[in-house]
Each structure stands twice: as C-alpha cells, then as structure tokens.
C-alpha cells in the first residue's frame, strides 16, 4: 500500500506528467503557447515507431510464445465487448443520443497509444517487466471496438452511411497508427538486436524527452477540450472517470485466466482502461457523422486521458502487482 502511494507520487512528479500538467495550465490560462500541428503529428509518429520497434526487438530477443496468441485474443475480446458496457452506461446515465453514445462507446473499447506509451515507461521504471508482444496487442485492440460501435449505432434510425463504406473499411483495417505500429513491430522483430543496436539512441535515448514534448501538446489539447465538459454534464464526466476503471477491472480476470505476468496484466489493464483519440474518432467521423465529436473527444482527451495518466496507470500497476504478483 505504501509502495503504491510512493509509486503514484513518483508518477505525478515525473517530467512527462508534469509537462502534461504544464500544457493543461497553459491552455486554461489561455497562454499563446502552441505546438505546430506538424510537430505534434511528427511526435505521434515517432512514439508509435519507437514503441512498435522496441516491442518487436524485445520479441526478437525472447522469442515468441503462445502467450502472444492468448494476449491478442484477450485484447480482441475486451475491445469487442467493452463498448457494450460503455454504451449501456451512457444511455442509462447521460443524455447523449444513440449515435453519440455508440461512437463514444467505441472509443472505450479501443486504446490510446500515448497512454500505453506513458504506462509502459511507468512499468519499466517501477520494475514491472512487460513483454514486447503487448505492443502487438496494442495494435490489435485499436479497431475491433469500431465494429461494435457501428453495430450499436446501426440499430438507430440512421445507421452508418453505406457510401462511406470503402473509406471506413480502409480506416478500420489500414489506419495509419495500426500500420505504423504493426509495421515497426515487425521491423523491430526482423532486424533484432543488431537493428536495435543501431536505433538504440533514437528509440530509447530520446523517448522520454519527446514524450514530454508530446504530452505538453496533449495538455494544451486537453485543456482546449475542457470546455466541452460542461456540455457533458456531471454524469458524463463521471462516466469518463469510471469507465476506465471498469475497462481496467475487466482486464484483470482475463489476464489472470490466461496466466499473464503482473507486468503484462498491468499493460493489458492500461490498454483496456484507455480510450482512443486517433483511430476511432477518424472512423466515427466517416461512419457516424451525426454523432457529436465534441462529446467523444472531450471524454477521451479531456477526462479519461488525464485520469489515466495521473491516477489510472499507477493504480492499475499496483492492483496487478498486488493480485498477480509474487
């Protein structure tokens, strides 16, 4: 318990979280601090390339086991099913319409790359070992939730637009973040320790610094979205704080069932508890233009992401450690 609190405090005073807080502050006081869009996108690409490559290189070192298959299956099941819970909660306790609830629900089945990135750094620094193949699980979990979301919406009066289908299929299967994550993972795997030796400084040495810069931008973006919280109402805000706990809690028995290590279980909880803000919003704009983006972007960026970054990650790690650890 004391350990958990110490961990949580260490997390809150890590440069990455503090830069996120700085971004929130700058955004709230309406400072003119901004990160150019191209830089923000470049940082996101870097983080995905680096995490993918590191995961693949780790797999190259320890070899692949059936663990990956089981973890992937667990991820797919969680990604498919969590939106059902989220949808039911949103419809029961908030006033958002069916399409918006379905779209928001899809975000919670999917994952947030930067939450995972920050979480995996946290795990490494707290000495919890996670497997490289969790990066593949990360990529695999991005999209199943989109299908559940569309199915939920499809039962509304106005379903997904059939003419947008080709674009949607491409977005679901081939969106940039999935391609880059899986691609970098495979490249890290294929090029192995020799490749890692060449890219070490790039993917490891710079990682924390560029993560700080990216989180500064995330803070600015989250702060800009905070205004949307009023529209959500109290029940919406509570949903954004409770749903990640539900997601993470759902991952725990699954992780136990397939015999995951505490580190991998914590990673799965982080994934399961996080909400997408890249792939799913893009798919939802295409398929469900009626759904209100200010609702799901506020939920994901301004409520769930800050919660996970500050409280969720150390909490999930402690619980995984306590329940599954030695």
């Amino acid at each position: 318990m004391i350990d958990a609190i110490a961990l949580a405090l260490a997390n809150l005073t890590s440069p990455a979280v503090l830069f996120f807080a700085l971004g929130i502050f700058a955004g709230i006081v309406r400072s003119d601090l901004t990160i150019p869009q191209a830089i923000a996108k470049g940082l996101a690409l870097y983080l995905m390339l680096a995490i993918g490559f590191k995961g693949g290189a780790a797999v190259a070192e320890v070899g692949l086991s059936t663990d990956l298959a089981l973890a992937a299956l667990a991820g797919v099941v969680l990604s498919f099913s969590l939106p059902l819970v989220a949808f039911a909660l949103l419809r029961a306790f908030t006033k958002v319409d069916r399409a918006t609830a379905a779209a928001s629900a899809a975000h919670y089945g999917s994952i947030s790359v930067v939450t995972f990135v920050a979480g995996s750094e946290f795990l490494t620094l707290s000495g919890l070992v996670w497997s490289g193949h969790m990066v593949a699980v990360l990529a695999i979990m991005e999209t199943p939730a989109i299908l559940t979301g569309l199915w939920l919406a499809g039962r509304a009066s106005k379903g997904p637009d059939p003419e947008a289908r080709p674009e949607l299929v491409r977005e679901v299967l081939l969106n940039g973040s999935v391609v880059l994550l899986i691609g970098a993972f495979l490249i890290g795997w294929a090029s192995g320790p020799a490749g890692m030796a060449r890219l070490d400084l790039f993917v490891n040495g710079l990682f924390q610094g560029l993560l700080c810069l990216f989180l500064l931008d995330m803070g600015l973006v989250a702060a800009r979205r905070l205004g949307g919280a009023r529209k959500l109402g109290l029940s919406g805000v509570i949903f954004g704080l409770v749903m990640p706990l539900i997601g993470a809690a759902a991952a725990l028995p699954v992780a136990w069932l397939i015999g995951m290590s505490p580190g991998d279980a914590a990673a799965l909880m982080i994934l399961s508890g996080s909400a997408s803000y890249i792939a799913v919003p893009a798919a939802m704009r295409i398929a469900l233009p009626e759904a209100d983006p200010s609702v799901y972007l506020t939920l994901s960026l301004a409520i769930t992401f800050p919660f996970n970054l500050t409280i969720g990650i150390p909490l999930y790690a402690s619980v995984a450690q306590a329940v599954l650890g030695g």
Partner: protein
Amino acid sequence: MTRPIRKKVIAVVETAHLRRLIDLIKSCGVSGLTVIDGREGSGVTGDWVRDGVSEAVEMKIVHAVMTAETAERVFDKAAVFFERYPGIIYSHDVEVVRGERF
C-alpha cells in the same frame, strides 16, 4: 475586354470526407481543383482547430472553377452530401483566361 465567365465552387469539408467530396466533384466533369488546409473555424456543428492530435474534425477547403452547368450538377450532388456531413458549399461567377480549359 470581356472574358469568359465560369463558376467557382468553394466547399469547406471535414478531412475525413475530403476524398469523397473530391470524387463527387470530379464525377461531375471538372477539369481541375485545388485543396487548401484550414487552420480553424466554427459552424453550426461546433468549433475546430488544426492541432495534429485529433485530425478527425479538421477542415479542408476545396476550390474548383467550372462551367455553370457543371456547377449545377455539383450543387445537386453536394446538397445531398452536406445534408449529412458538416461543411458548406457555395459558388460565384469568375472571369477566366483560357476559357476552353474549364
């Protein structure tokens, strides 16, 4: 000197739907078009700003110069398109050089 008159059609459209709008405009038979990046904006569906984190709601602006008949066809199709998707479309007359191009 009087010059040929054409219609310039301008649309503001979400990046997520840009490809479809371009296809729609091209299918009406335009000879060319130009797209530019939006920076920020607001409309009935809310505000947006280009920030690189969540590109889903960024807007692009499409410009195309065409004959009045082509513009009619574009408008007819676009009216349906913009019933469902955020964005606007409008047009006005322009004088062009090398009218046969459009």
